[in-house]
């Protein structure tokens, strides 16, 4: 093992969070910062000839190599876990920019009550009415505290959208259910596709409040406060699972790297796989990593920032033996608890007219939040606490992925002449009315190290113990009924069937929103990091990312992750560096 020259701050992970921490610290302090990224270097020019559905959308060329490391999954404590042998229900990224390169761009703020959900639900229903296994907690930070940082994140990326609640004033056409915003969005909404405009017309007629999803896909040329200029979206339909070839979608490579490249106190080490956070007497002393050639290094550091994806944040803490692993039986320990994903249900709808659905953008969608949180619940719904948002998206249908989409019963077989004829008849006539629902956390859904399966170095894989509960089934059934009403209003043909009550599956893509494991909170007894994302047991270690979420709200997590990154970094710069001890 080679010992390297000490640095002030070692950051693990070169995605949105790690690079944003680096950008802030190198701008406002003289601290030397090194970011360790295990994947390859990336830049906008790399995406010039990559609009290829097969390699990127289907073979998932930008994602982590599961041959080197994956997770294992089991549904309950009684089962044995098996490896997720190829990507399915979520898509962890790799390389500079991480999942921030291949994301779709949805950039919401969470509802204010999300951050105080335990208090909110207890007040609304009484503690006795909540499920016994419910593990939601207050986050330790509030919407009002994050509001200015949400705005900073929106400016950083130039989010396109329309305000629905400007300083308390409700504005038709925006999301009137959002928390109060101090500023209008940096850029106007994206143009509407045929499918999204049909949805808007229908739901408006039904009395709901449609709005264009706020998106990191720019609607027009925009210059951010760092002086980075990016062009408007071309609606090319190659967005989610691809990198943007023109830089219209905010990605760390087009938003953060150009700024960081000019900083003298910044260094990026790619191909550097961090294996352990090294610590002694309650303080991190540095990190141990293996480079692409297999050589091992020790990088001494005064402060360590763990800013990789949820999975690796949790796993690296466990491998480094930092904190107490969660025990779901004794309900003791904190590391790995409150694992959440996303609750979804789609109603597939068919139209008489073609949609030209090959056009689109990662987050060109129209949406209603009338049922987000508990906004649409009357109190009569048995055991249903939270629902989610309903939307129609035009992401750009590829010819491979969309071929064969047809109403049930249109063909007996799924191959041969009859099937081909039906598939050609129904091509480009279909969309999905989707629901992205809030996923509550439960005592039994958690992460730990797998006792059997290992990564390419022989280190244990991360194990998920995760299954749906009755609440998620109720969320889906409730949303599917609303979707059916909307489908009818849109004049669409659809298959009316209650949503499946099947176990969690690792095959079908749901979203890349995996949360928890190193959750934030108000007490070291029930959380891993404090409200500034500083580790309760190790003051010179900050753990940043959606790993800090005590549960998952309905909207996509990236904007909240960025706001929390600013929140933690400001605490580091304003207070921690001056007095490097516990902030609380």
């Amino acid at each position, binding site marked *: 093992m080679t010992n390297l020259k000490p640095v002030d701050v070692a950051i693990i992970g070169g995605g949105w969070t790690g690079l944003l921490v680096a950008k802030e610290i190198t701008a406002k302090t003289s601290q030397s910062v090194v970011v360790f990224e295990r994947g390859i270097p990336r830049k906008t020019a790399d995406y010039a*000839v990559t*609009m*290829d*559905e*097969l*390699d990127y959308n*289907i*073979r998932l*060329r930008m994602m982590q*190599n*599961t*041959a080197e490391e994956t997770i294992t*999954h089991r*549904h309950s404590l009684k089962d*044995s876990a*098996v*490896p*997720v*042998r*190829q990507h*399915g229900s979520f898509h962890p990224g790799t390389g500079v920019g991480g999942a921030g390169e291949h994301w779709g761009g949805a950039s919401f703020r969470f509802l204010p009550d999300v951050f105080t959900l335990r208090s909110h639900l207890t007040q609304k229903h009484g503690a006795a009415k909540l499920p016994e296994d419910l593990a939601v907690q207050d986050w330790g930070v509030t919407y009002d505290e994050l509001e200015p940082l949400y705005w900073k994140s929106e400016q950083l990326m130039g989010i396109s959208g329309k305000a629905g609640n400007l300083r308390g004033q409700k504005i038709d056409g925006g999301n009137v259910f959002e928390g109060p915003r101090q500023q209008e969005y940096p850029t106007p909404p994206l*143009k*509407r*596709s*045929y499918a999204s*405009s049909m949805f808007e017309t229908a739901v408006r007629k039904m009395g709901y409040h449609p709005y264009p999803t706020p998106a990191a896909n720019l609607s027009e040329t925009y210059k951010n406060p760092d002086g980075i200029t990016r062009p*408007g*979206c*071309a*609606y*090319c*339909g*190659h967005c989610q699972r691809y990198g943007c070839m023109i830089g219209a979608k905010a990605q760390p490579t087009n938003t953060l790297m150009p700024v960081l490249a000019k900083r003298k106190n910044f260094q990026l080490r790619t191909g550097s796989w961090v294996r352990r956070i090294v610590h002694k007497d309650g303080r991190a002393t540095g990190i141990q990593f293996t480079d692409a050639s297999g050589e091992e290094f020790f990088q001494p550091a005064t402060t360590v920032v763990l800013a990789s994806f949820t999975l690796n944040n949790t796993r690296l803490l466990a491998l480094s033996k930092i904190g107490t692993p969660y025990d779901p039986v004794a309900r003791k320990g904190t590391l790995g608890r409150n694992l959440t994903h996303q609750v979804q249900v789609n109603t597939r709808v068919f139209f008489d*007219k*073609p949609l*030209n659905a*090959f*056009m*689109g953008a990662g987050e060109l969608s129209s949406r209603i939040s009338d049922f987000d949180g508990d906004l649409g619940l009357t109190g009569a719904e048995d055991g249903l606490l939270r629902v989610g948002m309903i939307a129609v998206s*035009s992401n750009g249908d*590829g*010819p*491979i992925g969309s*071929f*064969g989409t047809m109403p049930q019963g249109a063909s007996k077989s799924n*191959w*041969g*002449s009859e099937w*081909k*004829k039906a598939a*050609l008849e129904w*091509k*480009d006539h279909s969309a999905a009315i989707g629901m992205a629902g809030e996923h509550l956390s439960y005592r039994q859904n958690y992460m730990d190290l797998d006792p059997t*399966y*290992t990564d390419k170095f022989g280190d244990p894989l991360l194990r998920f113990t995760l299954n749906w509960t009755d609440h998620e089934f109720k969320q889906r059934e409730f949303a599917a009924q609303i979707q059916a009403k909307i489908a009818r209003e849109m004049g669409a043909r659809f298959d009316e069937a209650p949503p499946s009550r099947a*176990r*969690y*599956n*690792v*095959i079908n893509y749901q979203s890349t929103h995996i949360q928890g494991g190193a959750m934030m909170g108000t007490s070291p007894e029930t959380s891993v990091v404090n409200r500034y994302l500083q580790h309760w047991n190790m003051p010179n270690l900050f753990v940043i990312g959606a790993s800090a979420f005590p549960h998952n709200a309905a909207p996509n997590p990236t904007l909240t992750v960025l706001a929390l990154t600013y929140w933690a970094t400001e605490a580091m710069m304003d207070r921690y560096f001056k007095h490097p001890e516990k902030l609380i």
Partner: protein
Amino acid sequence: MKRREFLTVPAAAIGGTLLYTLAGEPVRLQAQNGTVKLPLRFFTAEEARVVTAACARIFPSDASGPGATEAGVVIFIDRQLAGPYGRDKYRYTKGPFVESYPEHGYQGKESPREIYRAGLKTLGDFAGLSPADQDAKLQSIEKSRFLQLLRTHTIEGMFSDPMHGGNAGLIGWQLVGYPGPQMTYRNEIDKHFGQPWRPKPASLEQIMGRPGKPWEDEKD
């Protein structure tokens, strides 16, 4: 070293297609009388004949339009199996291998290459059967992983960019009215509502003016 195998096809079916030789050199095939010999990367000539016949039943050339044979789907599959996907370079293949719930997906040890090799054996002299007997044979193995892969790969070979070896002459994209990976729809996205808008298809290379780098050509 393995004897080099070729697939012999009528040139008219794939004229104008850009193909890559085993050495990775691009060759533009010209439609002319006679036949063309295409170098195979994975299949034997006999296997390629069986795959061609099976794909033709999955995605037939019939009254509703051209199918897998005209698109050169067998070339696509041959290259996928020869490349990193075919040998599971990016799949987690450490043991123990255990059966689990269907929600855990394919847990087997065999790579796509191995599944094809074994699956093709069970098809025997498939190319010599009548279309009705071929359909019956495929139906009898409908639930097998081999047939599921073959069906998926046939669709992929019909509609993926021609740099992958299928969709010859953009025949698949013409069939479904897909214009290819166009650079921009900025002036089109909010127009043509309810009307089919079908610009002339172009491949990634035609649009970008330089070839893409298909994953199957990745060096080890």
